[in-house]
């Protein structure tokens, strides 16, 4: 924008009025620094406004003397108290700054600590939630087991330890209505590697074993309770240790537990 247009825009009149933004003020200031024509224009506008506003005063001019005294009073005060106050004020100032600063740092540190705490508490919370979740699942399955064990129609058959492992034991809960047995095998030792327990249904006369399957998940299963389908007219149940994959007929030397159904 050339000088003429700039003046014609009316921005300089607003500049004197103080109606421009801080940014615009700086721009006008820069422009009049460079251009004496603009500066002269600004000074003329200012002069006109000063005369206009001065004409609205009602009183005679106020004397500078009234103010001068107040300015001087201030000045002497500053001089007479200058040294002691300044050092004293300085110390207080520094102390205040130090306190403020350390408070600030402390609160920042504390804030960070709290944030960390919050984060770790959040992850703890997640872990707890997972535990509660699995606990309630466990509880549900435990409750299911209890209802099974309490059912009057379910026959319970204790299986005692045999020659190869006299301390072993197990228990079979047989629900004839649903043709299911629940085998509690907690009393069996961990099978050696490459071996697996195999569950047998037996009829005694003559002795006929029928495989009910292998306990492949024995090691992984925590409660060692296995649900197995059994539609046989079983007279006894036995568990043998067999090579992985199971056998067609039981290896009687590796018979761990055995129990007869009492009728």
């Amino acid at each position, binding site marked *: 924008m050339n000088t003429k247009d700039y003046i014609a*825009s009316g921005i300089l*009149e607003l500049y004197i009025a103080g109606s421009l933004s801080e940014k615009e003020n700086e721009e006008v200031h820069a422009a009049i620094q460079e251009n004496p024509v603009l500066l002269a224009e600004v000074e003329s506008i200012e002069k006109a*406004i000063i005369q*206009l506003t001065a*004409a*609205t*005063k009602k009183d005679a001019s106020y004397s*500078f003397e009234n103010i001068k005294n*107040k300015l001087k009073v201030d000045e002497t005060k500053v001089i007479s108290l200058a040294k002691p106050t300044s050092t004293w004020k300085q110390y207080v100032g520094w102390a205040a700054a130090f306190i403020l600063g350390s408070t600030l740092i402390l609160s920042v540190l504390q804030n960070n600590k709290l944030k960390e705490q919050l984060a770790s508490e959040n992850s703890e919370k997640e872990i707890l939630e997972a535990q509660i979740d699995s606990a309630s699942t466990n509880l549900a399955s435990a409750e299911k087991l209890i209802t099974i064990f309490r059912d009057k129609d379910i026959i319970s058959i204790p299986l005692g330890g045999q020659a190869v492992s006299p301390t072993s034991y197990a228990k079979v809960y047989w629900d004839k209505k649903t043709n299911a047995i629940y085998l509690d095998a907690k009393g069996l030792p961990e099978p050696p590697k490459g071996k697996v327990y195999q569950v047998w249904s037996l009829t005694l006369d003559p002795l006929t074993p029928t495989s009910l399957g292998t306990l492949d998940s024995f090691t992984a299963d925590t409660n060692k309770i296995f649900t197995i389908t059994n539609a046989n007219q079983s007279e006894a149940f036995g568990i043998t240790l067999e090579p992985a994959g199971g056998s067609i007929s039981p290896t009687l030397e590796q018979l761990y537990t055995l129990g007869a159904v009492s009728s």
Partner: protein
Amino acid sequence: MKDQSQLILQFQQKDVKAYEKLYNLYCDSISGVVYNIVKNNDVAQEITQDVFIKAWNKADTYSAKKGRFFTWLLNIARNAAIDYTRSKKFKQSKQNLNADFFVDILESSSSLDSETNTIGLKEFVTKLGEKCKSVIELLYFKGFTQKEASEELDIPLGTIKTRNRSCIGELRTMLGV
């Protein structure tokens, strides 16, 4: 006006004599603006003095970058006067509130003692259109921004600028500045 920037520099270094010169340049104008807002002689005098004491105390905050020294004083004055009008004291006094515009004050003015061309100004403002009166009142006496004035008068932002320019142009022709 190299002298003036020199004076301002000295004032900022707490030179009382330099400040007296500045005071004499602007005191009438500042008291006129203050009076226009508070409409009371005693209060206007008190506030005008406060304005110049305040300016002295915060001399170091003035920067030519932010605007003219006169404009800086004008802002302090308008703020002080407007603060007063918001005070309890003013609300209780409720006096002389009938004269609303600088124009009314000028027309009723009896102060012919100053160097300013008051008689000429009187004639000028009576001839001024209403449009000019309100724009000058808001921008110079009340300290409205361009946007605030545009909203108050319900005219476009750009029109404020050009209208004000032509009004001040007329004033300058009349005053010969």
